[in-house]
């Protein structure tokens, strides 16, 4: 089937340009870009005034399978992704049990077929994410694991970690770390400072992130492993990251859209939907990290989609679960950064689509002839007020409930097939 998307404003994150052109999709591939007319028999979609960008590749999505399907299933996560312009989900292994054997990986791979978008899986770096013994990294890679991570469980035993990283390097595996010093982080619910003290909540110093990153960088230098820091959220960690990159280490870093658009004061009167890991930071940190994305020092923006049910959130702040759903609000939240003038659309899609795909060795994320036709069509200006009960996710723990947002996904295409149409909503 051939699709003809007419008069779209195409966002090219490689060339960092926006051009108005037509685009032909054939056989799941972007067949042509330019001023040509519609091929014979093609279905024509008028995109006048709308943006067309490479679909988002979301690195680090929690799905509740296995173990917590009441919070999120592959089907609902896939629907939320499609509605949010996310065409590739990179799923996290912090499930119950953890994805730490080829057998559990095969199970989730089979289950993932239910989703309308592409799903790749990460596997745990250590068994049970407990930081004691490395997993069967080789077998897991053969079974399709695209990266290895213990997510927010930091391996405290440096000897175990250095062995795992060295072994991972021998296989060319990508390891994703969570750079936080575990001793300082223990028991913390927010970032320490005036706000934490006013609310009487246990806080962690932002310095814990820099300490975690510095340790990991030393281990990367020792082992030569390919490494990606899941979230860099503080100004003080940025110079360490810049030094590591300048030294030629194979290091990249990400940040969640929530840390780019919210700060510690959004917690307000103990609103648990704003409890995240790591906790939301000061406004100065937020602005520094936004600038780091603009400069390309931070490579990847992700949603850190973490479904949590009402029961685990309707608790005193310290006891409440951490994390927020983010697949469906990812693009509208990112538009805040565009409308505020911090980031251009090509810069945003470089961090949301191109860079994560490149880091994982996937062919997605490009606006080019021959690239997979994974695309999102959106209106950057359409205003709406978010009602969390309209989200496709099973869990509704979004920090954006009731807020005014701008930017609506109109259509999502995966491999040339339209998987979401805003008109049907």
């Amino acid at each position, binding site marked *: 089937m051939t699709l003809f998307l007419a008069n779209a404003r195409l966002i090219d994150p490689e060339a960092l340009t926006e051009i108005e052109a037509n685009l032909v999709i054939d056989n799941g591939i972007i067949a042509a870009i330019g001023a040509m007319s519609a091929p014979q028999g093609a279905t024509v979609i008028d995109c006048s005034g709308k943006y067309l960008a490479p679909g988002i590749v979301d690195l680090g999505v929690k799905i509740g399978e296995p173990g917590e399907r009441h919070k999120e299933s592959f089907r609902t996560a896939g629907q939320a992704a499609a509605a949010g312009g996310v065409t590739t989900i990179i799923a996290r292994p912090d499930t119950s049990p953890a994805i730490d054997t080829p057998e559990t990986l095969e199970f989730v791979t089979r289950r993932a077929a239910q989703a309308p978008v592409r799903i790749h899986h990460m596997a745990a770096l250590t068994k049970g994410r407990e930081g004691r013994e490395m997993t069967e990294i080789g077998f897991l890679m053969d079974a399709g694991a695209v990266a290895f991570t213990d997510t927010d469980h930091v391996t405290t035993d440096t000897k175990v970690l250095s062995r795992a990283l060295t072994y991972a390097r021998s296989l060319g595996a990508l390891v994703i770390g969570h750079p936080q010093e575990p001793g300082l982080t223990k028991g913390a619910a927010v970032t*320490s400072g*005036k706000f934490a003290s*006013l609310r*009487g*909540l246990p806080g962690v110093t932002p310095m814990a992130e820099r300490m975690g990153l510095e340790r990991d960088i030393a281990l990367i230098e020792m082992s030569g492993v390919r490494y990606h820091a899941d979230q860099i959220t503080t100004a003080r960690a940025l110079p360490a990251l810049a030094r590591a990159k300048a030294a030629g280490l194979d290091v990249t870093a990400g940040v969640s859209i929530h840390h780019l658009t919210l700060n510690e004061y959004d917690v307000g009167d*103990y609103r648990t939907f704003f409890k995240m890991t790591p906790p939301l930071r000061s406004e100065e940190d937020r602005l520094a990290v936004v600038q780091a994305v603009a400069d390309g020092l931070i490579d990847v923006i992700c949603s850190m989609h973490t479904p949590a049910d009402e029961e685990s959130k*309707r608790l*005193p702040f*310290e006891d409440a679960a951490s994390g927020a759903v983010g697949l469906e609000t990812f693009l509208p939240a990112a538009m805040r950064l565009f409308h505020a003038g911090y980031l251009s659309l090509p810069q945003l899609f470089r961090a949301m689509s191109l860079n994560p795909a490149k880091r994982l060795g996937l062919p997605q994320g490009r606006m080019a002839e021959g690239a997979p036709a994974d695309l999102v069509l959106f209106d950057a200006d359409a205003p709406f007020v978010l009602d969390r009960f309209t989200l496709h996710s099973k869990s509704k723990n979004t920090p954006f409930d009731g807020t005014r947002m701008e930017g609506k996904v109109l259509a999502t295409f995966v491999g040339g097939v339209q998987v979401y149409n805003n008109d049907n909503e």
Partner: protein
Amino acid sequence: MAFRARHLLGIEHLSQEDIRTVLDLADRYVDLNRRTVKRTDVLEGMTQINMFFENSTRTQSSFELAGKRLGADVMNMSMQTSSVKKGETLIDTALTLNAMHPDLLVVRHQNSGAVDLLAQKVNCAVINAGDGKHEHPTQALLDALTIKRAKGRIQRLTVAICGDVAHSRVARSNLILLGKMENRVRLVGPPTLMPAGIGEFGCEVYEDMREGLKDADVVMMLRLQRERMDGGFIPSEREYFHRYGLDAEKLACAKPDAIVMHPGPMNRGVEIDGTIADDINRSVIQEQVEMGVAVRMAVMDLLAQNLRADRGRALTEETYA
């Protein structure tokens, strides 16, 4: 009447005018409490439930006595032995209690913000009797009343709050109240017991106690909260007493007429020398306990008035709808 609040969750939500209203009314209850017949009927027919998720003797009995003297039916629920142990969540406990139609709910909880959460789910007046490391508003109000009666005013005073500020909800509420009433507040203690970002609170911070007490009108000691510590904030209690315990020598740095306060219960020989605590010329610790009952009566009286007004309004709207 300026006081319009529905709940008393923290000093943070009160205005200077609110605070004055509470203190003025409490002054009148002090007189009542000194009579032989101490009962009034302002809470007649109302139900007060005290829910203490954390152990407390003095605060709970103070609230119980305050309620009884105002004529309320008072029920104490000891939450350590209740359904909470069976896994019931805070919200479910709140909804269960709410179905019994209490008018005043007095809550203490070990988590900061837990009382705020509970207040969102019930339709009666909620009084925070201490939540985690957040606030303890009636303690700050009773301290203010004590200071006002001893010093003749509650503004333009130099108040030194000394000791374990980091773990203290009493310190937080006092800091906010004294700031709102335009006093000069100093915090004195080792840096490991100071909360982060404390420099941004508009108070002065001292690590040397003698400097911190210099020319102070009020010396407010805090209890070293041993049960709230997860280890290693100070090297030992004897070193702590040596550097930060209030003794005659350190107190001599303050003004000659400075008063000494302590929210209790005291660790004698840890944060305060016993002879200072018992010195009736300097210590107002017993007065604080007395003021506690009066302030709690005033707060409950005011909240009950607002509750009646709200319910009256709702009833009128129903009738004319």
